[in-house]
Structure formats: structure tokens, C-alpha cells
């Protein structure tokens, strides 16, 4: 069977970035060391404050909650930053002249970073489980679906970020704001419901308007609570999360197209 051209092009980007990555040997070793240091660093922190997490994911220990959160957090960063790191005038002008589609350009540029993040997720889960005693209740179909929805949300965000960055040539304000809010409201290191206790009731509502919150929540739901897709309440939560993907993907696509078009009109596509 013939592989569709779009998929072959994404594979081409992935191969290019993988080959390029392997040529920086010291960076490869340091990244591998960073993964293990990261696991132990977060693991020891979680061990120190270890207590059950009664909110949202009942029956889960804090170490399980944190390990999954940090692992998923490592998935998010490269997806949002992946295209930005590839954006330079030489690459952008040349690649756009090949006539590839916007989704292929964006997905292609983040794919290796995403694959590397998934690979680095494995030691997080293994060391977290066997060394720190994290207990995972993984529902495989839900986990797969959570990853797909997360990837769709994040690709949408990546396209928005890239489109704005093509115009601003530096940090884009929207992604910056989302990332700032994420550090407080997305619930990387604590359940978002805990915000209501710390600040005032209802403040956690803000969290649910952030796409990253849904990425963390759906992944934790699937990996910590054995959330079955046959359960109506689980389906509703996945549906709510997928609304972000449905909204962000076309907005991201349009933003990217707008950024490229405006930059072409201003003659600044080759600028950086």
C-alpha cells in the first residue's frame, strides 16, 4: 500500500530532525541524563510531600499525580516550541516554496520533538512506578484518545504561535499569556480544584478555559483512574476537551495562513 504523501513528508521532517539530533552527541547524552535527573528530582519532591490526592482523581497518591503531570508537561513544551525553533528565514522561505501544506509543515516540524518526549515519558513512568511506588491505572483506549486530543490541541496552539511569530519575529503575545496562565492555573503540580481552597471558591473555573488544563486532565484521567470510554461522565469530559481541539485547530490554521500572508505582503518572510 502506498503511504500518503503528507505522511511521507512528515516522516521526512522527522528523519531530518532525528539525523541532525544524533550528530550532536554531547547534547544527546545530556538530554538522556536530564530525563533521569528530572525523574529523580520530581520523585524526591513528591516523596517528601507525599499525601493522597482526594480532588478529582480519587485514590491517587501525590507521587503518581506529579509524575504523570511532569511527564505530560514534557510533551506539551516541545509541541508549542517545536515550530518556533525551526523558524528561520532560510528554512521558512525554502520550505514554503516546496508547496507543502500548512498542517504538514507544522506537524512535520514538531514530530521529532514529540516522539522524543514520548520516549522520555517511558523512563518517567517506569522509574516513577518501580522506584517511587507510583500507582498507575492506565486505560489504554482512553490514554490513546487523550494523547490524540492533546496533540490536536497543541498543534492548534503551535500553529497560532507560529503564525504570530512569523509576523512579530519574536515572542508571540498570545502564547506567552497562555503559558503564564498555565503555570498557575493548568494544574501541573496540584489539582486545579485546590485553587478554590487556596484563593477563593470558583477561581478554578479559569483553569478550564486553558487548553493545557485539559491536556493534563485527560491524560491523568486516562492514566491514573482507569477511565473507561464506556463511562458517560468520562465521555463528556473527553468531549469537552476535544472542543478545544475543534476550536484551536482551525484558528491555528487561519492564524498561520494569516501570518504567512501578511509577512509575504510586507516582504518580511525572510526576516528573523
Amino acid at each position, binding site marked *: 500500500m502506498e503511504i500518503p504523501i503528507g505522511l511521507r513528508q512528515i516522516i521526512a521532517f522527522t528523519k531530518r530532525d532525528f539525523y541532525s539530533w544524533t550528530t550532536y552527541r554531547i547534547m544527546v547524552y545530556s538530554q538522556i541524563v536530564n530525563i533521569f535527573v528530572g525523574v529523580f528530582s520530581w520523585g524526591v519532591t513528591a516523596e517528601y510531600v507525599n499525601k493522597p490526592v482526594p480532588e478529582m482523581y480519587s485514590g491517587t497518591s501525590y507521587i503518581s499525580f506529579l509524575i504523570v503531570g511532569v511527564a505530560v508537561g514534557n510533551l506539551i513544551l516541545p509541541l508549542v516550541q517545536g515550530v518556533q525553533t525551526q523558524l528561520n528565514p532560510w528554512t521558512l522561505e525554502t520550505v514554503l516554496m*516546496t508547496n507543502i501544506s500548512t498542517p504538514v509543515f507544522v506537524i512535520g516540524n514538531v514530530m521529532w520533538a514529540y516522539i522524543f518526549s514520548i520516549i522520555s515519558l517511558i523512563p518517567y513512568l517506569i522509574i516513577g512506578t518501580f522506584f517511587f511506588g507510583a500507582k498507575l491505572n492506565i486505560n489504554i483506549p482512553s490514554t490513546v484518545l487523550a494523547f490524540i486530543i492533546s496533540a490536536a490541541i497543541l498543534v492548534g496552539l503551535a500553529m497560532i504561535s507560529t503564525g504570530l511569530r512569523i509576523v512579530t519575529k519574536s515572542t508571540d503575545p498570545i502564547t506567552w499569556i497562555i503559558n503564564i496562565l498555565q503555570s498557575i492555573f493548568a494544574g501541573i503540580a496540584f489539582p486545579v480544584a485546590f485553587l478554590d481552597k487556596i484563593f477563593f471558591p470558583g477561581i478554578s473555573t479559569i483553569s478550564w478555559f486553558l487548553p493545557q488544563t485539559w491536556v493534563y486532565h485527560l491524560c491523568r484521567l486516562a492514566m491514573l483512574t482507569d477511565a473507561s470510554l464506556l463511562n458517560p461522565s468520562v465521555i463528556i469530559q473527553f468531549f469537552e476537551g476535544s472542543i478545544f481541539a475543534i476550536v484551536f485547530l482551525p484558528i491555528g490554521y487561519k492564524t498561520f495562513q*494569516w501570518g504567512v500572508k501578511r509577512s509575504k505582503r510586507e516582504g518580511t518572510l525572510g526576516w528573523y
Partner: protein
Amino acid sequence: MENAIETIALVKRYPTNAPPRRNVSDIRGGFGGRGVGPTSFSGIIRVLKGTKGPFIEALRGIDLKIKEGEVFGLLGPNGAGKTTLIKILCTLVIHDEGEAYIYGLDVKKEPSKVLRNLQAVLPESRGFSWRLTGRQNLEFYSLLYGLRDREAKERIDYLLDFTGLKDRAYDGYQRYSTGMQRKLLLCRALLQDSHILLFDEPSAGLDPNSAAEFRSMLRRLSRDEKKTIFLSTHNLYEAQDICDRIAIIDRGIITACDTPDNIRNMTVDEKVFNVMFLDMVFNDDMTKMVNQLSEIIGVRGAMPEVDSDGVFHGLTIHADKDLDISTILDIIIKRGLKIRIINSKEPTLEDAFMIITNRQQWHPSENTNQTR
């Protein structure tokens, strides 16, 4: 025959921070007019679209028609609009007014179809991964261009051979010299075998040997593969050497467009040449001959040449540029004089370029091309 490239009244304006002046478009009610306040709704829309002025005009109504298979050169000083025109044609810049077509396809409305027929070699747009080999880089782009594996392999082998990079194909790109990098750019542009190739300053930064080799490749592409080649250059020798036609662009306007020879000749309305004799000529003979020559219609003047010993040994003749000089030579030969050499004082392409771009006036005494 259909034009490979055609532009009609093409206009491109770039935003500028400079205060409005003669060359800055500030059209009321048009692009970024004064009537639109920055905080008005339409002002905000124009800011978002990037259509808010003031603007500087990079291209001011370019009309060009380039035939299939032609090698066309675009000459112009820095900032004349050469790169802008090339980037518009390869869909990297969107023009503001006018039309541009590639085989009848509108570059603004059908960029995807345009890019199937055209590729560009832009020296500043490398787009290669420094850590990969030349071959790996081409393999990557072959997939982006949609080539199948076998087709890509054959094409890459052919192109590496064509450009002489075969022996260095497995070296990292960062080990390539500037000349090799330029060749790899050419390989990439030829991957999808487009009919039209655009080159922006193809030999800029290359040493004379590499530049000559690159020109030779362009000639082969034109002669053997029937490519339409559109190149911008500062190099007047390059333009005269390989172009069928050239256009001179200055401050966004095409000021001349013709064959290199016609461009050279269009800047002067007379030809000037020296006829040097093998033997010395006596005063009376010379006077009679000058008078006789002056009577020929089209001869504007004939001046005897005298050497340091005061001996007449030649003539400088000013004549209409279309005059058949055999009439003049007939008179000289019939008087029993033998011609040692004829020096033709014609403008070079560089002279023409300087005159057309208002940089300098041409003086015949400054240049001499010899014809024996």
C-alpha cells in the same frame, strides 16, 4: 507561443518608517491613506492585514514578457527591485497592484500551481540542515516536493552528477564551500524538474572559476533541458554572456528591455571608429579624402589622425549608427591606401547600464573595441 512569465503593471509597496516623500505612496482612501486614523476600525484592519502605510514603492509598474526557453537577465543597481520581482514570481512576496503570470497562472491566486512550474535559487535562502550530508538534504527536499523514492534517487543521482557534486555527496553540508553550497541550491531547485528557474544573483560571492562553472551549468540547462531562465545580476559580463534578452530596472521601473547588443546600441545614436593606414598619407591626399568622406550621407565628420612626428596615418570617423561602412572603406581603398586596423569605439553593456540608470554619460574616447 505562450509566455512563460508575464507581468502587467506590477506594483509593490513596502511599509516604511520614513516620513512621506515623493517616492512614498500615501494615497488618500487607498493604501494607508491619511484619512484613516490608527484607532479607527478600518485602521486596525489595515494594521492586521499589513496594508497600513506609509509605503515605499519597490516596483512601479513592471511590464515584462519572457518567452519559453529564453534566458532573461534583470540588471539593476542595489535597491532597484530585482529581488522583489523574483520573490513575487516565486510567491514569497505578494504584490499590491498589477498582475503576474507563470504560464498564464496568476501568482497571487494560484500559488500552488505556479510553484509546480517554477523554482528559485535564492542565495540567502539556504534551508539546508548543516549537520546532514548534501545527499540527505536533497532526499529531504525530494520528499517535500512529492517525489517517489525511486524517482527521487534517480533524480538526485543525476543532479549530483550534473553539478559535479557526486564525489562530495556524502560530506556534511557544513563542509561545503560557497560554490558547492550554490550548486546544492541548484540541485534542490531542479529536483521537481520545473520548466522555469529563477536565480537571484547566481554568481554573487563566487570566485571567477566557480562563477564561470555556474554560468556554464545555466547554459547547459537552457540548451539541453530547454529551461526558461530568469536571473537577476549585477554582473554585466554574465548578463551579456548568457542572456538572450535583458531588462534594466532602476528604482522600480524597467528602463530598457532588449537583446544585450541592442541595449548597448540604443544608448548612442552614432558610431565612432578609427581607420589606421599601413603607410603614411600626404596632406593633400588626406584633405581630399576627408572632403570626399564628408559628402557621404550619414557621415557626421571625419578627422585626420596625426602621429607624434606630424605624419597623417589614420582617420577618426563619426557616422550614423546604421550607416554601411563599406562605402567609406571603398573610398579609402580606391585611393590606394592599405588599411592596417579598424578600431570600433562602441559602448559596452556597462556603459549602457550606467547611461540608462543615469549614473554616467558615455564618451567614445573612453572605450575601444578592436575589429581587425
